[in-house]
């Protein structure tokens, strides 16, 4: 019995799991606290999967499911890119690729008072942080960090924004630096903002650089580190030879 349950966990970690898979049997494990992340739920004595993805484990006791999709589920403390849809008396309504629009309070800026409320028209791209995200309620955003400073949040001017999957955004934000970004950064200079909701904004001096960077990123989702470097090399060679 113990062997079988051990086999269950070791065989599922880092494997693709689908909703309904039972990955842990609590009755056969010794008394320990387990932390469940996203995609897992507790059904009395078993832990089963709610979301399709890869089951991950981190010592000592954290389990979660990593998945990548185009739709974003708002989560507290995520930094995301939103587009202003409308402005009301107290809030801006911001589209964040989630199930509902999010509210950005008009005063949630550094040094924000009733007198200097920013005027954003529909379509303005903002780099914001999620403050509150509860199921059934509209998420609340902020353009300041936890201590109230502006810290790079706010409007992103010029540049080009494109949409990716949430998995690619997480890969681009991982540390150490993602291979594709490192390879691009060695040869080109550009600005980039990555939102965990599957939106990426790139800005550079010339449009051809912007296009090159965007295409490289969009192509890199399913490639391994080495393949990403090779892909960037090839793109750079084509670019150099044609210009």
């Amino acid at each position, binding site marked *: 019995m113990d062997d079988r349950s051990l086999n269950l966990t070791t065989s599922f970690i880092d494997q693709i799991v689908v909703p309904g898979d039972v990955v842990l049997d609590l009755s056969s494990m010794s008394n320990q606290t387990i932390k469940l992340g996203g995609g897992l*739920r*507790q*059904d009395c004595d078993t832990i089963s999967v709610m979301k399709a993805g890869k089951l991950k484990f981190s010592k000592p006791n954290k389990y979660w499911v990593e998945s990548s999709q185009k739709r974003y589920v708002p989560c507290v403390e995520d930094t995301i890119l939103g587009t202003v849809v409308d402005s009301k008396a107290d809030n801006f309504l911001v589209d964040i690729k989630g199930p509902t629009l999010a509210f950005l309070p008009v005063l949630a800026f550094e040094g924000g008072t009733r007198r200097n409320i920013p005027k954003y028209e529909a379509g303005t791209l903002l780099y914001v942080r999620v403050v*509150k995200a*509860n199921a*059934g*309620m*509209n998420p609340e955003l902020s353009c300041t960090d936890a201590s109230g400073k502006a810290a790079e949040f706010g409007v992103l001017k010029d540049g080009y924004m494109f949409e990716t999957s949430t998995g690619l955004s997480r890969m681009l934000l991982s540390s150490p630096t993602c291979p594709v970004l490192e390879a691009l950064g060695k040869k080109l200079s550009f600005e980039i903002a990555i939102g965990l909701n599957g939106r990426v904004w790139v800005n550079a001096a010339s449009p051809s650089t912007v296009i090159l960077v965007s295409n490289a990123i969009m192509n890199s989702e399913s490639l391994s580190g080495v393949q990403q470097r090779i892909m960037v090399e090839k793109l750079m060679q084509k670019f150099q030879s044609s210009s």
Partner: protein
Amino acid sequence: MAMEVEGEEMVTPGEVLGKASDVKAGRGAYLAPHNKTVYASLTGRRIVIPPSPASPDQRPTVEVTGHKAYGAVPELGSVVIARVTKVMAKMASADIMCVGPKAVREKFTGIIRQQDVRATEIDKVDMHLSFRPGDIVRASVLSLGDARAYYLSTAKNELGVVSAESIAGATMVPISWTEMQCPLTGQIELRKVAKSGG
């Protein structure tokens, strides 16, 4: 002698029943402050109830009894049972299901504002930690509110969430005035819980 006069006359809402100096407004009637006249607010028969001899105010009370039965209607101060439909940052909406012990016949909407959730520290109330959609709450009617909804309050010990379902789907057990626990998973969820019993 003074007796209950059963009026044969049907009155409709807006009909004058008497002057404020002559009669008192009872159920189904109201006093218009601007011209001190008592008008009917329901359709029904007009009944005049004589004043009790002990009371200082010797005006008879005029009432209108509806000729068709209507369900309970929330009144100011009545305790209602409502089901929370939506929780927002500064308020929660609820569908009123019972007024006192009686169920209502038609849908009434109530709003519980952030400042009416509890009596202490009202500006630090987090609506999401007090109610969730689907909770059954006991509340008292603060005011008749506007055309859309009554204003409800849960700012007393015996008011608040009476029954709630956990994320796992089981009915939760109250532990304290802020916590309820799921019997299946043992998870504790935060609500503004009503004190039940004595």
